[in-house]
């Protein structure tokens, strides 16, 4: 019989306000095997833990139940506490009487009754707990960063600086990401390229950093400290070692009509191309879909002009398999498609553009050479209208329910830059709210209004109607005046909602990292563990976790790097001992369990088994504890009940069921 101690936490008033803690203590004390029961205001505090430790020592407890907050919060705390007091940490069970009880119920009687039942279930379970010993696993001291934008670059640089090797995988031909597409950055109006390209160069030159561009993650196996990742390097058709980056091939390429992704398809590019002048690596790729050589077999001009002999039409995709201890997701964002917002006429007029397109138009290296002009006729606009929250804060299913966070600030930036450069252009911004939390942010927005005379109208736009003369009639509302207003504009800029890059979903599946309903990766704790995914060894950097601007992205990238460095600095990790094991007396050797094991952790052995004196050779399932992650799929597939899961055994779970139904 176990000697069990029960510790009931008040959590200040979080629990005690709705659960009569003393009655829980009383009820628990009456349960069989319980030799000690007490309450304390904050069980997780040092004093609370000291109480637990001394009870373990003084009363020789063999198992403890802590009735407190969610085990996801403090299970580890109490396990460590037990361990320090000489009790096996897996002899600890938590009854979640806060998140699952006191916080969801109002009635004291009801909540107290439920808390007692939850305590009983935990007591019933701990009766069947057995001491478990955690194993150890090695840490591969190398990190993988998926995504080569500012988030990925910064994270990689910080990890590399700490002395660990890092690989960056970027799906585009160059690193740089969205930030490379921006013209200026708020709130200080630095030129985006001027502050980004030095970091790109630094990453490329860093001895600890390897960059795989034009590459994608194909497969991930393994677990924290020991991931194996297959990276598909798409065929570049250009030999990276030979290419000198002279650019002659791009100049001579006769296929020039491909929409230029980097310029948001506002211009065109050649089939052999580098996305932008400062690309890293400065080695072009051949877009085989549009290359005449690949389409018809005729051409080969680039090969002819390449003095270095770097063009290689025979290259094929290459899979690189590499081991990593930690993986960082920094896959960034894209703007949403506007096909469900026909009222803004984005598909009906060339002069209705997204803000990201405006960035390219304003950029000296962009399709208009940095000159503000209408894409329909090249004329300078006189009247510009910016529309905020296009697809953001939209809960009707057409857009995104969240605030995209960056639009208020970049719109103020755009308005300011335009008014500064072209004082004759009238700028009107339709807004619902102007959101400027951040250092010097509100001051920045106010400057746009007070110093640059940007006309802010509180109200949303209901329709943008192209007029026969090529202008655009913007019908909006002015909520301060309480009326509908109309502005005839030359150009309309939509602050389009941002969404996680579409690759995030597939990647999250491969990493078994969870994503939320909007496809943003979920953090392990929204406040306390914001850069870690709930999946050990997977970390989050940049907008893949949620909308954020550049200063915030860079801070988060640093935080993420710190977490990765913390992991890589360890020589070994303790493994989860809650793994499956097979009872050789019960095992039929039928292979059903191996069929469902996602980790390939189950193999079969011919083994001589002594079954109550009868010896015989049997085919027996054997679990590799280093590979098993403890999901339990095998235990249910096993018809004979030979397969069981430590820590969540059949009998433990049934004991909980019985306690709840009692």
């Amino acid at each position, binding site marked *: 019989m176990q000697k069990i101690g029960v510790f009931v936490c008040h959590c200040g008033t979080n629990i005690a306000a709705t659960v009569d803690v003393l009655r829980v203590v009383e009820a628990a004390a009456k349960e069989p095997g319980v030799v000690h029961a007490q309450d304390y205001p904050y069980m997780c505090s040092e004093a609370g833990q000291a109480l637990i430790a001394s009870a373990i020592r003084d009363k020789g407890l063999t198992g403890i139940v802590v009735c407190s907050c969610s085990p996801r919060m403090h299970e580890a705390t109490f396990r460590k506490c037990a361990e320090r007091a000489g009790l096996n940490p897996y002899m600890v069970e938590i009854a979640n009487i806060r998140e699952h009880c006191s916080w969801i119920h109002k009635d004291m009687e009801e909540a107290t009754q439920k808390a007692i039942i939850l305590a009983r279930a935990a007591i019933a379970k701990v009766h069947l707990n057995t001491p478990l010993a955690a194993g150890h696993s090695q840490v591969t001291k190398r990190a993988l960063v998926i995504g080569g934008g500012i988030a990925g670059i910064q994270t990689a640089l910080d990890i590399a600086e700490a002395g660990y090797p890092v690989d960056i995988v970027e799906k585009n031909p160059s690193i740089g990401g969205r930030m490379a597409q921006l013209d200026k950055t708020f709130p200080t109006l630095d030129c985006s390229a001027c502050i980004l390209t030095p970091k790109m160069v630094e990453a490329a030159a860093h001895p600890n950093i390897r960059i795989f561009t034009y590459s994608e993650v194909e497969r991930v196996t393994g677990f924290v400290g020991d991931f194996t990742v297959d990276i598909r390097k798409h065929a570049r058709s250009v030999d990276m070692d030979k290419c000198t980056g002279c650019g002659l091939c791009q100049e001579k390429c006769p296929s020039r009509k491909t929409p230029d992704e980097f310029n948001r398809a506002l211009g065109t590019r050649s089939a052999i191309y580098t996305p932008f002048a400062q690309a890293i690596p400065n080695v072009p790729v051949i877009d085989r879909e549009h290359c005449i050589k690949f389409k018809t077999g005729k051409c080969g001009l680039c090969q002819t002009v390449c003095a270095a002999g770097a063009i290689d039409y025979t290259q094929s995709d290459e899979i690189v398999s590499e081991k990593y201890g930690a993986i960082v997701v920094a896959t960034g964002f894209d703007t949403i498609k506007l096909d469900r917002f026909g009222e803004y006429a984005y598909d009906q007029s060339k002069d209705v553009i997204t803000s990201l397109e405006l960035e390219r138009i304003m950029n000296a290296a962009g399709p208009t050479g940095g000159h503000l002009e209408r894409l329909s006729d090249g004329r300078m606009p006189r009247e510009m209208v910016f529309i905020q929250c296009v697809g953001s*804060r939209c809960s009707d299913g057409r*857009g995104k329910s969240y605030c995209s966070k960056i639009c208020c600030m970049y719109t103020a930036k755009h308005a300011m830059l335009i008014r500064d450069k072209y004082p004759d252009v009238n700028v009107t911004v339709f807004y*619902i709210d102007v959101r400027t939390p951040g250092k010097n942010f509100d001051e920045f927005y106010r400057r746009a209004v007070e110093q640059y005379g940007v006309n802010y109208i509180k*109200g*949303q736009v209901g329709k943008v109607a192209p007029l026969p003369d090529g202008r655009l009639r913007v019908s*909006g509302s002015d909520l301060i005046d309480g*009326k*509908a207003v109309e502005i005839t504009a030359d150009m309309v800029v939509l602050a389009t909602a941002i969404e996680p890059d579409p690759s995030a979903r597939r990647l999250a599946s491969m990493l078994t990292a969870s994503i939320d309903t909007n496809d943003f990766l979920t953090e392990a704790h929204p406040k306390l563990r914001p850069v870690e995914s709930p999946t050990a060894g997977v970390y989050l950097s940049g907008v893949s976790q949620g909308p954020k601007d550049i200063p915030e992205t860079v801070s988060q990238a640093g935080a993420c790097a710190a977490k990765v460095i913390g992991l890589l600095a360890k020589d070994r990790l303790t493994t989860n001992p809650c793994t499956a094991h097979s009872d050789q007396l019960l095992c039929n050797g039928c292979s059903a369990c191996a069929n469902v094991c996602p980790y390939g952790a189950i193999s079969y052995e011919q083994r001589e088994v002594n079954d109550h004196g009868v010896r015989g050779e049997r085919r027996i399932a054997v679990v590799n504890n280093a590979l098993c992650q403890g999901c339990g799929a095998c235990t249910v597939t096993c018809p004979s009940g030979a397969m069981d899961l430590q820590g969540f055994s059949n009998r433990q779970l049934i004991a909980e069921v019985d306690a709840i139904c009692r």
Partner: protein
Amino acid sequence: MSELTERIMEISGADPRKCMKCGKCTAACPVAGEMDIKPHQFASCLAKGQSDLLLSSNTLHKCLSCFACVERCPRDVRPGRLIDAVRQCVVRARGQAFLTPEEIPELLDDELPQQLLVSAFRRYRR
């Protein structure tokens, strides 16, 4: 919440508390200029529980039920439904009709389609 507000929410099946006060309904409304209380103010009045203000609004009879506001509302508040629900409350309570049967013949012409009459009757009285 007043009984009237509650009834309006029940009849409309729309929730004015979802409104984030962006004004897109008014911006999208082709007859907003004619209305004494604009569509966005409808949602706002209801959310504040000032539904009685709405009972005498001309908006009840100006709204065309063209659903532009319903289609474009980013928060699924469906202002057109709210307006119609207020109108329903008015006609149900007093049997009040915007047009009386006596007034109608002089408004008719030869080309007028049945559909117009039927719709107008449905809208203007019960």
